[in-house]
């Protein structure tokens, strides 16, 4: 098992290298030197040169020990992302500040979504072929077709603004939990369509297997068959979906944070886009990729726990 983990870890090296290459090409090659834009319209030539030196755009792209690419690698791997273009604060600090608010939004949303979707999927699978099943599929497709933006806008408008059930926007001096309630709700409802459909398909696929018939032939009740026999098998595809979604929890929800003013990483990114601050986007991209790679490995390890057929040879 150790050998397997080591092998997988080794494989992540070319991937991380690849990610750094992609971000480099995007932000240094295609985009490049924007020191004049950072400095602003009325800046002097010295300021511009200072900025250029700070971000390293005065150095050659690839072909020297001090090249931009090498520095890019060095900086990313030490999580030193320099300073943001808009307000010149260290990016790593902004990231640290934004992590907690984002997580307080995405983690409850994620867990709620998971529990609700899987339970509903099992129930719907039980009623397969009946009107309940057909109706739920149709509702899922309808939910999936509504654009996410509309969910947020209408949700915010009706539930908060018009009917006053929830606060509309985040004010820094009040406790956070109140403010994440509505976005969490909206997030769950918006994602329900797609998730429920996926889990339902997984359950139905499992129900088609022969071992289900054997379980019934043994005299087990429907609940036991679904929640013990089918669920454990269904966990295998479900785990992929679930674990790989975890990295995205850190990035927060771009749109939800923007609309509700939650000062998390999503909000940070939206600001960065508006300000064309590539440095921040570069940093977030890299972090996102690292998290993804790590959780990929965790997924594989989880597989082995749930599925005894997976060995490490």
């Amino acid at each position: 098992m150790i050998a397997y983990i080591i092998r997988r870890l080794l494989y992540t090296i070319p991937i991380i290298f690849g990610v750094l290459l992609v971000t480099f090409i995007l932000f240094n090659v295609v985009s490049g030197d924007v020191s004049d834009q950072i400095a602003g319209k009325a800046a002097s030539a010295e300021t511009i040169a200072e900025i250029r030196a700070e971000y390293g755009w005065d150095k050659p792209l690839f072909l020297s020990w001090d090249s931009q690419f090498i520095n890019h690698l060095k900086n990313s791997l030490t999580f030193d992302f320099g300073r943001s273009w808009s307000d010149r604060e260290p990016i790593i600090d902004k990231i640290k500040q934004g992590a907690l608010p984002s997580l307080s939004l995405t983690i409850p949303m994620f867990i709620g979504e998971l529990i609700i979707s899987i339970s509903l999927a099992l129930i719907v699978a039980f009623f397969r072929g009946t009107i309940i099943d057909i109706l739920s599929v149709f509702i899922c497709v309808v939910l999936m077709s509504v654009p996410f933006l509309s969910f947020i806008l209408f949700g915010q408008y009706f539930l908060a603004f018009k009917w006053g059930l929830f606060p509309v926007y985040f004010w820094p001096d009040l406790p956070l939990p109140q403010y994440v309630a509505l976005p969490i709700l909206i997030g769950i409802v918006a994602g329900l369509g797609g998730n429920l459909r996926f889990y339902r398909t997984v359950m139905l696929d499992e129900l088609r297997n022969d071992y289900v018939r054997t379980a019934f032939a043994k005299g087990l009740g429907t609940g036991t068959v679904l929640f013990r026999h089918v669920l454990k098998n269904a966990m295998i595809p479900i785990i992929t979906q679930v674990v790989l979604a975890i990295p995205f929890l850190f990035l927060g929800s771009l749109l939800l944070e923007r609309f509700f003013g939650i000062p998390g990483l999503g909000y940070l990114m939206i600001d960065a886009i508006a300000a064309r601050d590539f440095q921040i986007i570069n940093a977030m991209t890299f972090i996102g990729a690292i998290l993804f790679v790590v959780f990929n490995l965790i997924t594989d390890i989880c597989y082995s726990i749930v599925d005894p057929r997976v060995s490490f040879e």
Partner: protein
Amino acid sequence: MIKGRSYWADSLRQLRKHTLAMYSLGIIVVYILVVMFIYLANWTKTDVSFLDWNQQVGKEYEKPNKQNILGTDFLGRSVLRKTIYGARVSLTIAFWASIISILIGVPLGAAAGYFRGFIDDIVVWIYTTLSSIPYILLILAFALVLRGKTLNLNSLGLGTISLSGISTVYLAIGLTSWVDICRLIRAEVMKHKQREYILAALSYGCSNSRIIFRHLIPNVFHLIIISFSLRFVGFIQAEVILSFLGLGEKNSPSWGAMIDAARLDLPKGYWWEMTAATAAIFLISLALNIFGDALRDSLDPKLKVQ
């Protein structure tokens, strides 16, 4: 005597029986026709001023009434016309993005699955890397970076193309969304490569490219179609988000931009522009989802009833 039915004829027959899917197809066709009409009018320089979205047709913020069925926006322009032009943006972008992602994903996937070895390693490395980056971030990054850049295609004799609004968006989406179709094709090709009919073709001296194009690709074609129809919706929704964030088309209305405008209008009680855009997006998404599902069911050999 039972007439032999080809795979495609069988699928078509099953699809036609699905009434809901057929209605959805009708809706999709309507959208396409509207968009084609606009392009045709532009191309033939026909006068379509009755559809001019930039024209002020009434007072600002008029509620929906007999004259302007969907009301007007903050400049008094017809929301109905803006919605129609929005369709042009969305469908064009989704279309080109699909083409680009298929043109990249299918050949790479087929090559990787067929030749294995070094080519496979490279392709897998590329798409694993790309898929490690969160999708939204990747699209945003591409869109941001590609704005205002010019593509120098002089060497291909195509001159220089200046990237703007629409082309930025579909390039960004297309260049980042080919991973799934690539994986799919690669897996299928690997499976098919082991089958006897490929061995047979090789044994009578078929060249590699002939095998790929004449034997393998037709057998995975149904996957391409399914992927195309199912991802189209995603592309439309991606474009909406990009437009909303200000990275999309600026010179012509788009649904995302309309929703963006609605953000501030809604609290003031002006709900019609937002509703129109939402309804337009919802309708085409629903139709594509239903049709795409029915298409996949009819083309999936595993689901064929004996």
